[in-house]
C-alpha cells in the first residue's frame, strides 16, 4: 500500500468571500463565522445560505421584516435548533453536534425576545446561575458546607453585584426577578448572559418596549459592555435609531435569505432593503 493517500473526488463548495468585519479586528480571525447555514421546517426553508462573519470586538446588527428568520438565526447559533445545513465556526471551532449548554460554555450567550428569566429566583441568584460554570465546588461541598462553598459563593456574590452595577441594578438584587418591571427584566437578562463570560453576546430585540430615552441609555450601555468586556455583540432590533447608531456591520434578512450586508450608511442607501421593508415601488 502506498503511503500517499488518494483523495476522493472533491465536492466543490463556494468559499464565503462576502464576509466583512471591522478593520481593527482584521488581524485576528473572526469570532463567529457562519457558512451556508440553513434550516428547514417541514420542507419550508426558514433560513438558507446564511453567511456572516463577526469581528472580535464588533457590534453587528441583524435586521429584517417580521418573520424574516432573525430569531431563527439566533436559535441556530445557540443550537436551540440544529441546523439542517452549513457550518458555524465559533472562534474557529466547529460547533457541530454541540448542545445549547455546550455552545454557551464555548462562548455564546444570549437574551430572548420574549424574556426568559428565572422568575422565582432573586435578581442576584439569576446572575449567579449565569456564573455557575465559573464556580467549581461540587455537590458534596455544597451539602457539607466545606470551605470551597463559602469562598466561591462569596466571590460569586461580589462578581454578581459588580455585573449588576453595569445597569445600576445593585439595589434590586434581592427582588424576585419575575416581579421586576419590564425594562429591568430586559437588563437583567443581559447581565445574566454576560455572567457566563461570553466572547459573543446575542441580544434579541433588547430595546423592545423601551421609550426613546431608555433606548438611548441602552445604546450607551451596549457600547460600554463591548468596551469593558472586549467582546463581540450581535443584536436583532426593529428600532432603526438604535441599529444605525450602535452597529458597525449590519446584515439584512428577508424570507430567510441575506439581501444586504454593509455599514449602516450602505444599508440605508440600499434599494433592496427599502423594498423589503416598504414594498416595491409601483411603476408610474
Amino acid at each position, binding site marked *: 500500500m502506498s503511503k500517499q493517500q488518494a483523495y476522493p473526488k472533491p465536492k466543490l463548495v463556494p468559499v464565503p468571500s462576502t464576509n466583512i468585519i471591522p478593520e481593527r479586528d482584521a488581524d485576528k480571525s473572526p469570532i463567529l463565522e457562519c457558512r451556508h447555514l440553513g434550516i428547514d421546517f417541514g420542507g419550508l426553508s426558514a433560513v438558507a445560505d446564511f453567511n456572516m462573519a463577526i469581528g472580535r470586538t464588533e457590534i453587528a446588527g441583524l435586521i429584517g421584516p417580521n418573520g424574516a428568520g432573525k*430569531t431563527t438565526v439566533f*436559535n441556530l447559533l445557540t443550537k*436551540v435548533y440544529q441546523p439542517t445545513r452549513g457550518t458555524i465556526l465559533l472562534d474557529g471551532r466547529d460547533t457541530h453536534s454541540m448542545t445549547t449548554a455546550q455552545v454557551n460554555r464555548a462562548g455564546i450567550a444570549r437574551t*430572548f425576545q420574549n424574556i426568559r428569566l428565572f422568575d422565582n429566583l432573586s435578581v442576584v441568584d439569576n446572575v449567579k446561575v449565569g456564573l455557575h460554570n465559573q464556580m467549581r465546588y461540587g455537590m458534596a461541598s455544597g451539602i457539607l458546607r466545606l470551605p470551597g462553598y463559602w469562598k466561591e459563593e462569596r466571590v460569586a456574590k461580589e462578581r454578581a453585584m459588580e455585573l449588576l452595577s453595569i445597569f445600576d441594578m445593585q439595589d434590586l438584587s434581592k427582588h424576585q426577578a419575575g416581579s421586576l418591571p419590564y425594562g429591568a427584566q430586559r437588563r437583567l437578562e443581559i447581565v445574566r448572559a454576560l455572567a457566563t463570560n461570553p466572547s459573543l453576546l446575542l441580544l434579541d430585540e433588547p430595546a423592545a418596549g423601551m421609550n426613546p430615552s431608555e433606548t438611548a441609555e441602552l445604546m450607551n450601555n451596549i457600547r460600554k459592555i463591548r468596551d469593558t468586556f472586549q467582546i463581540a455583540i450581535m443584536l436583532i432590533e426593529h428600532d432603526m435609531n438604535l441599529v444605525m447608531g450602535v452597529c458597525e456591520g449590519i446584515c439584512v434578512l428577508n424570507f430567510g435569505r441575506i439581501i444586504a450586508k454593509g455599514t449602516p450608511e450602505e444599508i440605508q442607501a440600499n434599494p433592496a432593503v427599502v423594498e423589503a421593508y416598504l414594498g416595491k415601488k409601483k411603476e408610474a
Partner: protein
Amino acid sequence: MSFLSNVISGISLGSIYAIIALGYTMVYGIAKMLNFAHGDVIMVGAYVCFFAVSAYNLPPVIGVLLAVALCTALGMLIERMAYKPLRQAPSLAVLITAIGVSYFLQNAALLWWGSDPKKFPAFIVVGEQNGVSLFGGQLRITYVAIVTVVACVAIMAGLIAFTGKTKMGKAMRACSEDKGAAQLMGINVNATISMTFAIGSALAAIAGVLMCSAYDTLLPTTGSMPGIKAFTAAVFGGIGSIPGAFLGGLLLGVIQIFTQAYLSQELADAIVFAVLIVVLLVKPTGLLGKQIQEKV
C-alpha cells in the same frame, strides 16, 4: 388453539382498554389534564348497570343506557364542580384535585354499595348460551367479547367522524390546539370542554359494563387499575390521538394476556409497564403522537 383463544382474549381485553383510553385521550387532548377519576367513573357505570339489572330487574339495554346517562351527567358534574374552577391553575393542582375526586368516588361507592364484591350477571346471552363454540368446543368466543370488539371499533370510527366532520368536533380540535384562539373565533370553550367530559364519561360507562360482563366481579376499586392501564394505553399510542388510543389499548390487552399465558401471571403488569417505558424512551410521544416543539 390456545394461541388463538389467547389472541381473542387479548383483543377483547384490549378493546375494553381502548374504549377507556379513547375517553382518556379525548379529555387529555382538550383539557390537558390527567383525569385520575376516569377509572372510577367506569366503576360507577358498572354499579348503576348492575343494580338496574339485578335489583330492579330492568332489561339490560335500559341498564346500559341508564349507566351511560348517569355517568355522562356525573362526568359533566365533576368537570363543573372540581375542574372548571381550576382552568387557570397549575396542572399539578388539577391532578391532585382529580385524585381527590377519585378517592371521593371510591369511598362514596364503598359507603353506599358496600365492600362486598358484586357478581355481575352475564346478560349478553343468546338463548342459554353466553358464547359460541368453534372447532368442536376447542375454541370458545363469548358474546361479550364480540360485542366489546364491535363496540370498540364502532366507537373509534364514530369519534373520528365526529371530531373530523361535525361542528362540535371541529370546535374540540380547535380547543385542543389553542383555547384562547378558539375563544376568539367564537367557540364556547367551556361548553366544548364540558361536552368532552360528557363523551369521555359515557365511554367510561360503556367500558365499565363491558368489563364487568367479561370479568364479572365488581368492587368500589374495580375501576382504578383499568383506569391506570387505559391511561398507559393512551400514552402508549400517543396521547391526544384517537387511533393511537385504539392501537395502544389493543396492544396493551394483547401483551397482557400473552405475558399472563406464556410468561408469568404475576409479572404481567410489570411487563406491560416495562413495554410502555421502552416505547416512550424510543418514541417519547407514543406510537402515533405528534412532536410538539417549544417556541423560542
